[in-house]
């Protein structure tokens, strides 16, 4: 029943499903996503029934879900355990930032070209402790403390990547990466294309973003929407220790530039993850809770608000299907599409701004591709288009709260 497949190291060939191209014939409606690209070389948690088909909907239900999560920083949410928990033979419990650290350390052990650069990542151990202890183990050159110059050290990472190094560039807060926008957009995203394929840029740009606890407007930014148009990059958002480690490893192994969005408030989530090596698929969405009545698409922290709302909804008799989209660019329209075809109603819950956010793009994509399957218009709940205020009550009102999600579902399901 376990849908977790072993990483490349384990070499378990039989149960593995290799990457399958999205067979266009399986899509009834055309896909808007410009491409469904798989990176090479790593195995993903895919269908486990051994048949060589692209992700069938049945296998999604057996997919990894979070049996027990005890987040202490966020709203107290337990993932709905209706979905079968994966049969973990053994596992160890850790916090999300430790999971990121584990993934990072494993990859640095595995490949000497992997290095980290960012502010206070070395001796200080990282402002969110993701790189704690790594400088002692790997040395100053591999865990590089940079001066405060985002533009320069992001560019430096990209230049190093052109020669074959695999740097992980940490922005202390995602918002600071705005200073490096030119490097990310023009060099990181475009060099592979403009050089006609000569150079690859295997960087990972990561950092915490999102609305925290009264951090103020400039430190509560959501940059997914700004980066989503940059051609040539991939964006993923992690939300649990399990997918944090998996996505971190996948991003490092990917030959393409990947931006990994973490959330300030999720670093202390606790979960039990497998001892064995595993990787998550960069382009795949995660089925959190299967259901029949409505598809709720979300990512990052809003997943927990959605799951909390789901508890209320279940009590009220609704059966929501919750999908954590994880891959922000490109969207996993296969998973999403299958869900829409089943439930015919979509609610998007995101922390991005309303204008030009991820939800806006996703709404357009769903409308274009699955219009015939919708019984109601796609509804999108996003943060308000305001700079995040400092006052706690106001800050609460900028992001989507579970009560609003419940109301929206009730409205859509009338």
């Amino acid at each position, binding site marked *: 029943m376990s849908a977790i497949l072993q990483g490349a190291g384990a070499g378990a060939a039989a149960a593995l499903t290799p*990457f399958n*191209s*999205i067979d*266009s014939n399986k899509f009834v409606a*055309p*896909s*808007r996503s*410009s*491409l*469904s*690209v*798989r*990176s*090479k070389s790593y195995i993903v948690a895919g269908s486990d029934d051994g048949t060589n088909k692209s992700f069938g909907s049945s296998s999604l239900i057996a997919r990894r879900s979070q049996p027990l999560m005890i987040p202490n920083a966020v709203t107290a949410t337990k993932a709905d355990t209706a979905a079968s928990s994966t049969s973990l033979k053994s596992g160890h419990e850790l916090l999300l930032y430790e999971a990121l650290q584990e993934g990072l350390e494993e990859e640095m052990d595995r490949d000497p070209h992997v*290095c980290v650069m960012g502010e206070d990542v070395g001796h200080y151990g990282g402002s969110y402790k993701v790189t704690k202890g790594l400088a002692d183990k790997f040395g100053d*050159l591999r865990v590089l403390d*940079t*001066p405060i*110059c985002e*533009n*320069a*050290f*992001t*560019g*430096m*990472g*990209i*230049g*190093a*990547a*052109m*020669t*074959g*190094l695999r740097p992980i560039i940490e922005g202390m807060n995602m918002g600071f990466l705005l200073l490096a926008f*030119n*490097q990310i957009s*023009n*060099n990181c995203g475009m*060099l*592979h*294309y*403009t*050089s*006609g*394929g*000569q*150079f*690859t840029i*295997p960087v990972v740009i990561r950092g915490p973003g999102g609305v925290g606890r009264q951090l103020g407007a400039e430190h509560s930014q959501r940059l997914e929407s700004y980066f989503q148009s940059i*051609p*040539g990059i*991939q964006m993923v958002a992690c939300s649990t220790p399990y997918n944090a480690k998996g996505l971190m490893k996948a991003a490092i192994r990917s*030959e*393409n530039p990947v931006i990994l969005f973490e959330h300030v408030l999720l670093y202390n989530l606790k979960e039990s993850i497998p001892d064995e090596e595993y990787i998550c698929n960069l382009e795949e969405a995660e089925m959190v809770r299967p259901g029949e009545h409505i598809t709720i698409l979300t990512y990052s922290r809003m997943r927990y608000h959605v799951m909390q709302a789901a508890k209320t909804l279940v009590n009220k008799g609704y059966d929501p299907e919750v999908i954590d989209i994880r891959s922000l660019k490109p969207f996993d329209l296969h998973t999403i599409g299958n869900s829409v075809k089943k439930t015919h109603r979509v609610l998007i819950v995101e922390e991005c701004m309303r204008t030009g956010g991820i939800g806006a793009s996703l709404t357009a994509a769903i409308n274009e591709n699955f219009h015939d399957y919708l019984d109601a218009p796609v509804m999108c709940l996003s943060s308000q288009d305001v700079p995040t205020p400092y006052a706690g009550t106001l800050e609460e009102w900028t992001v989507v709260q579970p009560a609003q999600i419940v109301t929206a579902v009730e409205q859509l399901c009338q």
Partner: protein
Amino acid sequence: MALSRLSSRSNTFLKPAITALHSPIRRHVSTDTSPITIETAVPFTSHLCESPSRSVETSSEEILAFFRDMAQMRRMEIAADSLYKAKLIRGFCHLYDGQEALAVGMEAAITKKDAIITSYRDHCTFIGRGGKLVDAFSELMGRKTGCSHGKGGSMHFYKKDASFYGGHGIVGAQIPLGCGLAFAQKYNKDEAVTFVLYGDGAANQGQLFEALNIAALWDLPAILVCENNHYGMGTATWRSAKSPAYFKRGDYVPGLKVDGMDALAVKQACKFAKEHALKNGPIILEMDTYRYHGHSMSDPGSTYRTRDEISGVRQVRDPIERVRKLLLSHDIATEKELKDMEKEIRKEVDDAVAQAKESPVPDSSELFTNMYVKDCGVESFGADRKDLKVTLP
């Protein structure tokens, strides 16, 4: 007249010894490799370091190679000019004529393991790194056989196997990239250096100083070369920089000011810089050079400077003329031989242009290739799935 006929006849005896050269030109000139020492015309000015000696070790072969390469680059840029006016090259086209000494002088001092990264004025640097004329022209005309398969254009020439990292359109953005190249060289213990070229306009960018700080802090083998052609597009240096002594603006980083129109001085400076960078970390080279064309083909180049100034520099400081005088005065070649060489080069460039004109444009499936790496047999679609569809390798 009789004398030259005599000398050319006597040179036929020497012909067999010289045809071992790779060039198609049948040359009767001296290609001695025994060292000649030549004094640079202009002394070096230094900041926080010692100047290299003004006596440059070179040889007849090398000076002749300078002449040949610079003449080829000059012809290429002139040909690009006509192609642009004939609307075969579109968009932006930034020409390097006048600055050729920098490209050839630098190449003479380094190996292909050393990396070079530059801005958008990259055609000649690409040729200097071993790029072929036909690849350059094809890329300029947007053909499939171009060095970036037609996807980059004038500002995006790259040659990975020769460690030429481009070719960048945004002013100054290549400087942090260059420091990254130097960082990788240090990380991999390559014993090679990176030459990061930027202009007097980019010298006012914040990222330059950020990168300088990083490079100096970590002793990266980066050599920052400011190609000071005195105009940042239309703005003269005295109007844009409070301190136009670009070699001094590194403050704690040593600097050297070099006559950038003298290929030998450039070679000497680059050799010196390479030794310095491998031992002591970054150094700035300010190359005093000049461009005859405007900033790009859209700029006439005469609204912010006088034609007298341009022709004055051409008469007094032209890099090719300087080398020609050297060749003649040291009896390495005769006037006629050099003219023949130039004719051959002109033909070579014309042939390359003709070949590039014949080459095909990229097909529409190329629109989506090279977006991501290793596309695994996946199908890739455009925004409208029905129109453009390609299976990626």
